[in-house]
């Protein structure tokens, strides 16, 4: 009885809730909504970043939408998104499943896999840039011709390098998500499958993968929306080059705004980035199906 009376009355509890939300809400408003409104307003102006801001209506929008640089940047962004998803997802699932098992040295290997995630993107990019330098890098140092390609100087190769480095950095993070997902799967499912004579491969495709459906959606959303804003890594590695071979939307925005002093068009691209990001996130949620809230464990 005493336990019941010591609990605070219900209405008081409800009053505390808004206060708990406040810090997060304020951060969100101050650092996400407010700048967003600012950028939207700037996209209807002409501003060199130094002088006065002139409202010029749709001039910046027209300029950007008619620039062949935009479809190119969109295409590169899409390619980075799609290819890095296609490389990272299978790798992350396999590593995640492996780490969730009970093999020897699993914990040690888990820590080793995790290391890239603890390094800053800029540091990773600088290290790879040095390693891949065709004249002073790894290939030249070890005298291996295969390794002393012009890695960052040829469009196709530079794109491949970026996908590789991005994957190298983020696969550990997604593996961690999958590891957690796999550990949630009830052991009874596997036991039943074993009794029915299903082998390891069959178990993976018939139990593990379907049970990971929502984990896959979560991880894919993070990958896809995250790859829209890849900036630091590409900026340090190639600066969008060679030429504009790796110039993704985020880099295009930076270059227009801060190097060419065209804040209006840069804001237009920022707005496009936000719209594409929202659209993709919504789309991925839809992929989860209408019963997204339903349990995967029905009948277990």
């Amino acid at each position, binding site marked *: 009885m005493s336990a019941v009376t010591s609990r605070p009355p219900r209405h008081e509890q409800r*009053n505390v809730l*808004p*206060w708990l939300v*406040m810090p997060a*809400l*304020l951060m969100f*408003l*101050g*650092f996400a909504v*407010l700048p967003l409104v600012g950028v939207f307003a700037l996209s209807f102006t002409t501003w*060199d*970043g*130094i*002088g*006065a801001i002139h409202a010029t209506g749709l001039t910046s929008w027209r300029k950007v939408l008619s620039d062949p640089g935009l479809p190119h940047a969109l295409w590169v962004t899409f390619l980075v998104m799609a290819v890095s998803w296609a490389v990272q997802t299978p790798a992350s699932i396999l590593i995640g499943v492996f780490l969730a098992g009970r093999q020897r040295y699993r914990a040690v290997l888990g820590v080793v896999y995790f290391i890239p995630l603890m390094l800053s993107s800029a540091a990773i990019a600088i290290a790879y*840039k040095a390693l*891949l*330098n*065709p*004249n*002073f890098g790894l290939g030249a140092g070890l005298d291996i011709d295969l390794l002393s390609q*012009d*890695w*960052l*100087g040829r469009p196709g190769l*530079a794109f491949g390098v970026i996908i590789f480095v991005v994957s190298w950095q983020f696969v550990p993070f997604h593996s961690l998500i999958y590891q957690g997902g796999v550990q949630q799967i009830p052991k009874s499912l596997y036991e039943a499958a074993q009794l029915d004579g299903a082998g390891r491969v069959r178990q993976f495709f018939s139990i593990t993968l379907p049970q990971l459906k929502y984990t896959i959606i979560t991880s894919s959303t993070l990958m896809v929306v995250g790859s829209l804003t890849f900036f630091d890594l590409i900026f340090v590695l*190639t*600066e969008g*080059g*060679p*030429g*504009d071979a790796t110039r993704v939307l985020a880099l295009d925005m930076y*270059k227009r705004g*801060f*190097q*060419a*002093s*065209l804040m209006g068009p840069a804001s237009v691209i920022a707005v496009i980035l936000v719209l594409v990001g929202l659209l993709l996130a919504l789309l991925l949620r839809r992929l989860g199906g209408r019963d997204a809230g339903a349990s995967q464990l029905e009948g277990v």
Partner: protein
Amino acid sequence: MAISRRTLLGLAAGVPVSAALAGCGSSGPGSGTGATYWYLNGQPQEGVRAGAVDAFNKANSKTQIKDTTFQNDAYKTKIKTAIGAGKAPTIIWGWGGGTLRTYVEAGQVEDLTSWFDQHSDVKKRLFPSSFGAATVDGKIYAMPCETVQPIILFYNRRVFEKIGAEPPKSWDDIMSLVPKFLAKDIAPFSLGGQSRWTNMMWLEFLFDRIGGAELFQSIIEGEKNAWSQPDAIKALTKVQDLVRAHGFVKGFSSITADSNADQALLYTDKAAMMLHGAWSYGIQKNDGKKFVPSGALGYMTFPPVEGGKGDPSDTVGNPAQYLSISSKASAEQKKVAKDYFATGVLQDEEVKKWIDNGSVPIRLGTEKLLASSESADFLKFTYDIASKAKVFAQSWDQALSPTAAETLLDNIVKLFQLSVSPKQFADNLNAVTGK
């Protein structure tokens, strides 16, 4: 004590703004008594700049200058953003020209014309040619400082001996040297192509040697279709010829000049020649160990192109570096900055240090110091170029407005990548520089 939605929104709207205001107050130009000064890092130049500030601070214990350093390419964006946000340092380091013009047009820098009239002794002790890029519409907005930096063709004598060849005397010599070096697995030219302005130096010289100084002048003046003149197309074609012949080091488009990797190629005998600013001498002396003292570093002006109109004495580069004063600074800070211009910039100690590093300071009457330096030959060479050049053009990316310069640099990279033809290059640029 329920919170209504309205109070929540009210709080939400109010707090970030006040928080933001509180967050910004610390480093604003109006606060504090001392002046602030931002400049480029990277030795050996950084040490000389810091030394001049230290000396001034020591001599004036009441008025202090607080200095902060930045990497070259990062500084170019940082300073623009800071000025735009009203957070500029008191003393703005720069290259003059087109960028200075945008500051002037936005009313962000002080007009120094009358100050120079009052302090004619300051003006008189500097190279007269250095004031061109500090002047916008007849008024002076910057104090020229530091050194004169023409672009020079550096070469490695060791590798020239190895293949038994002489330095090029013409463009045709350059083209015939290329296969000879390639046969010995030496890159004919080192180039830090990712930095973009490095590629631009090639066009600056080819435009001058083929079309004469008038060619780029017509571009600066915004003449219609100036980039598609036959001489311009010829120069653009020549540079692509050199790229096609593998004249530039493998991987040049991913090498940055900020890391000095392009210089390293030259002093490690991996490349034979390099077109670079005169400041490169100091870097090679600093980093190249025995390379410079042993006399292996050769230098010459860019050779003429057969049938070209340009005067071979013409050069291009940075006539000086420039210091402007932010118009947003307090009166007190402006006074400190002006005192620094009068009694801190290019004093004897700084002049001596520049000379020791192999640069020619823009102060007049240093001939004796130059001649007695351990780098006397190179300094005389630079001094002669600077003082005898018929035309000393300012680097294009500094002479043009930032917007036009960005399009230019972007297209230059594509030109070197062979992903645009000379004609496409000209069309793209006519669209931004023509009136």
